[in-house]
């Protein structure tokens, strides 16, 4: 019998994890900060993450960074909502303290998904609006509109251009659907003497007790109000000189523009919560499509869309909808009759995944989407899939068996799973040593004698999900590490190819002879080309793997959060 880890021990570990940031999270945050903001911000950011709330001078001393660099770093972090400040704990007059948010930094990982989603919903314009905002943290509406219009125009054929009004309309739609929101206004209550960098939209320090949380964006009435701006004009094409600078990643300061548009001081940010709700809904919809069929998923999509506004983000199920209402709201091209809709709804309610529940009989039957239960069941399927892929289908059989029957003795596991004793024992041992299953000892007598003790195997879904979440963080960090390593290995070659591309571009612009171009092109040898090719392949693969792991992160995290809310 293996008595390695009792569940009590396990629980304890899981709880410790919950309150403090784990080593895996810290490592990943560091890598993300370095990639997006450079090494100084990484140093200051990771220091703050580890130390908890600290004032400016302490951060500078302890992280060994000059004060002005610390200030700049904090500015950057605050602009992106990754850092907040509040009045010192030592009473009035004590220095303002800063705190970094691990949760927020980890969202950097999801940037490609936010951008991609904006593109699917609102086209290229939506994509660029969200991309600009993510890159800069916060901006005024007028500067977003101008920047995006410029970028769109630049990518168009000569002679075509994008009107500001087009971008304004997309921007307004994004606000209307709550994907963008105003940054909460900065409170004036911060001690004026403080040397704190004050960034609008970074969450105000409250004048109240230091412990109070900063107000959320949504607690301000104008959160989703688009200001009236006087913006007439169209995007401008950049000249090629600016272009090169932009391409090389030299982030230019937004041109200071003498014109005023009437929205000065009103800054906007991406509403991550809203995107997450959208991701959650998409996850549920595609699970329904996979388990049942397209029509069922379309019905669930309709239900989710209808209750978007009426259901609070943390609700465990959507507002109840009558079959009549659902029928009226189905997309016009879905021509199913009313009785058939009823059949679909009944089948959805019958399905053991419990995506949809019936809450009453009025209006032809009242239905809800079981958000919390759907997440719980999808997280369970995720855990099962991990065991299946890693340890094979028969270990997965044992794992599912334990998830369904909760407490089983080894003999029962063998009998239910129909796996020979020796194999079952090996599999259980492996799962046990990987912390995927746990062993509970139930002594029949007070002396805890092993011969008079029940040994019951069990799976704790929540604890396992938390553990796998940590595995995901470590995995993403490994992928990033590998990506950095691959790039470093080919650094010289990459630089060479970039140089040559630049020469080619300028030659082309000056109308050089074709022979001249091929000559330059051939400066890269065939084996070098091949190496570049395989490097590109590797980077792409690592990139898309990072995004895929983030999907696992999203689902597990959504489940953990939803469970926390459900048990509150």
């Amino acid at each position: 019998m293996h008595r390695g880890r009792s569940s009590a021990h396990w629980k304890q570990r899981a709880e410790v994890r919950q309150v403090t940031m784990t080593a895996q999270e810290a490592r990943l945050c560091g890598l993300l900060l370095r990639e997006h903001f450079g090494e100084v911000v990484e140093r200051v950011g990771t220091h703050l993450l580890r130390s908890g709330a600290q004032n400016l001078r302490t951060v500078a001393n302890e992280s060994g960074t000059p004060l002005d660099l610390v200030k700049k770093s904090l500015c950057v972090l605050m602009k992106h909502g990754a850092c907040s400040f509040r009045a010192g704990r030592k009473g009035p007059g004590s220095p303002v303290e800063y705190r970094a948010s691990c949760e927020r930094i980890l969202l950097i990982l999801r940037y490609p998904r936010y951008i991609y989603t904006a593109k699917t919903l609102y086209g290229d314009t939506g994509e660029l609006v969200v991309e600009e905002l993510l890159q800069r943290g916060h901006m005024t509406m007028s500067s977003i509109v101008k920047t995006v219009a410029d970028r769109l125009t630049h990518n168009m054929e000569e002679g075509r251009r994008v009107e500001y009004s087009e971008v304004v309309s997309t921007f307004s739609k994004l606000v209307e659907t709550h994907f963008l929101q105003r940054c909460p206004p900065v409170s004036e209550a911060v001690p004026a003497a403080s040397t704190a960098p004050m960034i609008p939209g970074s969450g105000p320090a409250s004048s109240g007790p230091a412990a109070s949380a900063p107000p959320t964006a949504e607690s301000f009435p104008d959160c989703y109000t688009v200001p009236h701006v006087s913006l007439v004009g169209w995007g401008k094409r950049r000249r090629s000189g600016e272009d090169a600078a932009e391409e090389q990643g030299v982030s230019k300061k937004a041109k200071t523009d003498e014109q005023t548009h009437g929205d000065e001081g009103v800054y906007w940010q991406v509403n991550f919560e809203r995107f997450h709700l959208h991701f959650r809904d998409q996850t549920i919809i595609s699970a329904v499509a996979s388990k049942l069929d397209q029509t069922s998923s379309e019905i669930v999509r309709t239900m989710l869309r209808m209750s978007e506004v009426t259901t609070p983000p943390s609700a465990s199920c959507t507002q109840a909808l009558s079959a009549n209402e659902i029928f009226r709201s189905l997309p016009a091209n879905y021509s199913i009759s009313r009785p058939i809709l009823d059949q679909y709804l009944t089948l959805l309610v019958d399905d053991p995944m419990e995506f949809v529940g019936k809450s009453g009989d009025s209006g032809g039957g009242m239905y809800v989407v079981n958000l919390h239960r759907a997440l719980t069941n999808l997280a369970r399927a995720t855990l099962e899939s991990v065991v299946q892929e890693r340890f094979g289908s028969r270990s997965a059989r044992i794992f599912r068996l334990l998830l369904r029957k909760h407490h089983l003795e080894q003999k029962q596991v063998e009998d239910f799973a129909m796996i020979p004793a020796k194999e079952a024992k090996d599999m259980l041992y492996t799962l046990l040593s990987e912390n995927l299953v746990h062993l509970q000892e139930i002594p029949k007598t007070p002396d805890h004698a092993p011969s008079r003790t029940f040994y019951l195997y069990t799976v704790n879904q929540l604890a396992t999900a938390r553990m796998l979440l940590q595995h995901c963080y470590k995995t993403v960090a490994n992928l990033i590490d590998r990506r950095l390593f691959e790039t470093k290995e080919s650094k010289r070659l990459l630089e060479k190819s970039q140089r040559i591309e630049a020469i080619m571009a300028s030659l082309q612009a000056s109308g050089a002879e074709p022979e001249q171009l091929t000559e330059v092109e051939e400066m890269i040898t065939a084996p070098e080309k091949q190496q570049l090719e395989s490097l590109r392949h590797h980077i792409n693969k690592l990139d898309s793997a990072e995004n895929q792991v983030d999907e696992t992160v999203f689902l597990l995290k959504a489940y953990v959060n939803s469970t926390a809310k459900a048990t509150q």
Partner: protein
Amino acid sequence: MADVKVKKESDPADVAAIETRSKIKELCQQFPHGITDQVIQNDMPHLEAQQRAMVLNKLLSLGHLDLLKNSSGLLYRMKDAQSASKMKGSDNQEKLVYQIIEDAGNKGIWTRDIRFKCNLPLTEVNKILKNLESKKLIKAVKSVAASKKKVYMLYNVQPDRSVTGGAWYSDQDFESEFVEVLNQQCFKFLQSKAEVARDSKQSPMIQRNSSFATSHEVWKYICELGISKVDLSMEDIETILSTLIYDGKVEMTIIAAKEGTVGSVDGQMKLYRGVNPVIQPTGLVKTPCGLCPVFDECHEGGEISPSRCIYMTEWLNF
């Protein structure tokens, strides 16, 4: 139940009971149309009523006698005269051992217990057993309960599950492959049923309902496939179907059924259907780290590290 209690020592009463039994059987053979209780009483006047009843019950439960009813009351009649003829030419000791083995039914009995019951020396018992085996009157069966333990039972008796371990054992070994083959076949059956239902383009409810198969249907399909050497019961198939539920490939619903419906047990019927997976393998396991056996030992700058990882290299070059 007197037999059970006296298993350990050879009780003269036990031997007496066995003798009484063969006497009654002889009597029945003399009167192939059946005998009444009175006939037995007349033939064996010294036999107490209680003991007589016990012996008769035993014979009935072993299936040696039939109980009939006619105008004159209850009649006992020999069920099958075959074994008696087989025993021709056997001496009394052989008959006694045969009787003991017969009593053991489909659970069998091991040599030591036979010896205690018949009170013969071990060498003698072994000789008789060999003899009976060669005449194909009895057989030795290995028990899964304890290895190397052989039990004897009549030649044409199907051994009990507790002896063979059921359909899943052959010669004490759990037939893991057999189980997996059945698991796959059952799934195939349910899957094709679900496919046919989907392709029928009927209303969703009809589609779902026609994707269901009762355990009886699955059982019939497997029997007709003829992949099993042993006879499988419907329960055996339900055990296999349960493994498919734990594989996440099949779902089960229990419905109420009219008494007497084919495949229903206690007014209930189990319905099974093959289902689609709800998600594709999750992102984590699409990376080498998600499947890595040295995940915990891997650190940047360590002996095992992402930069030097061969799993990564292999995966990247794939």
